[in-house]
């Protein structure tokens, strides 16, 4: 099951906190995180990998990045 976390317009640590919350809630084995800055993209990827998740894809959109992370 896939879930989406919209962290656009928020600065760190909020995007990371929201991503970790979603990971903790369980249920989803794929989460798409929307961020709009490179720093958030790096931080969310780093935090997901620390939790044993894989960064499956990062696609650039007009509004920022869509980061797809999957349960490892």
């Amino acid at each position, binding site marked *: 099951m896939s879930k989406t976390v919209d962290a656009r317009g928020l600065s760190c*640590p909020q995007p990371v906190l929201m991503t970790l919350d979603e990971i903790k809630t369980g249920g989803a084995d794929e989460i798409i995180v929307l961020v709009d800055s490179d720093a958030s993209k*790096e931080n969310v990827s780093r935090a997901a990998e620390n939790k044993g998740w894989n960064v499956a894809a990062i696609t650039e959109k007009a509004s920022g990045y869509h980061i797809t992370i999957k349960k490892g």
Partner: protein
Amino acid sequence: MKGMKNIFAGRWGIIGVGVIIGILAPLLQKLGNPGNMGICVACFERDIAGALGLHRAAVVQYIRPEIIGFVVGSLIAAYLFKEFRPRLGSAPIVRFFLGVFAMIGALVFLGCPWRAALRLAGGDGNAILGLLGLIFGVWIGTLFLKGGYNLGRTQQTQPAAGWMLPLFMVGLFLLMLVFPQIEGKEKSGVLFYSLKGPGSMHAPLAVSLMVGLFIGFLAQRSRFCTMGAIRDFVLFRQSHLLSGFIALIVTAFIANFILGQFKAGFAGQPVSHTMHLWNFAGMALSGLAFCLAGGCPGRQLFLSGEGDGDAAIFVMGMIVGAGIAHNFGLASSPAGVGPYGIPAVIVGIAVCLFIGFTMRKRIA
């Protein structure tokens, strides 16, 4: 350069940046900056406030080119790597007051987190109290973050809005060129220049500016942040930013030793006092304010360079806070805390707690 992987985002990138700052800051001191103050974002913004006459403490007045370099260096990096993103609107007035009280706390301790690190690396034992206070303040901040504290989303805006603080910095630099320091004169045109005290001690303008630009560039790429270093470790047990901060302290310690600038002790340290409780409390206030605002004073300058108008508001809050701190006797001196320093710290902590408890609107 967008496609290039950001080498500074890795573990060795952030450590490398910490090492470079750890070398350059003691060198700036060797070249003329005040003791254990090769770089101090709070002190230098306070000196800028003094140079503009926002306060009239005669010993702390100088337009510090390092600060100009931090913002413009970050701006250059952001444009080069297509990361300039004009944005604002995340509770600006709250950020302004966080900036004011962050500065007041820093001036009770006599330094920001950058200088706390450099003071420790120079052997100043009082910095231990400051760093403990910083950790305590940031820890309180993380409790609010866990409880849902946030300042809300930003909105995209016109590039000109993102240019406001960089342009202000360019303006300060032009003022320095139009009204250069005149030997033995305390005023040149509209600018004040200290004749004695820390404000009179500075590395050559070109050196300060170049070092500032270089650090601003590197810090934009690496997201170097002294508050984030502690916050991320407390919040996520993540040591990425922390490794950069520790690299800075260790390198500066070695550099100070080699340059003959290391002197261990509590009493008689440069631009410091030994009132332990207020060293702790001042920095605790600062740490809490930085944590609630999402970045240390350096990071706020680097963010301003990438177009973050909210960080720019925080910076202006700090500059105004410096004016308040020195005009109304809140700032400390080597003799100890100022006459109104203690109540100011208490009020500051109360204001930050109020902000922490109330700014928790659900993110739409």
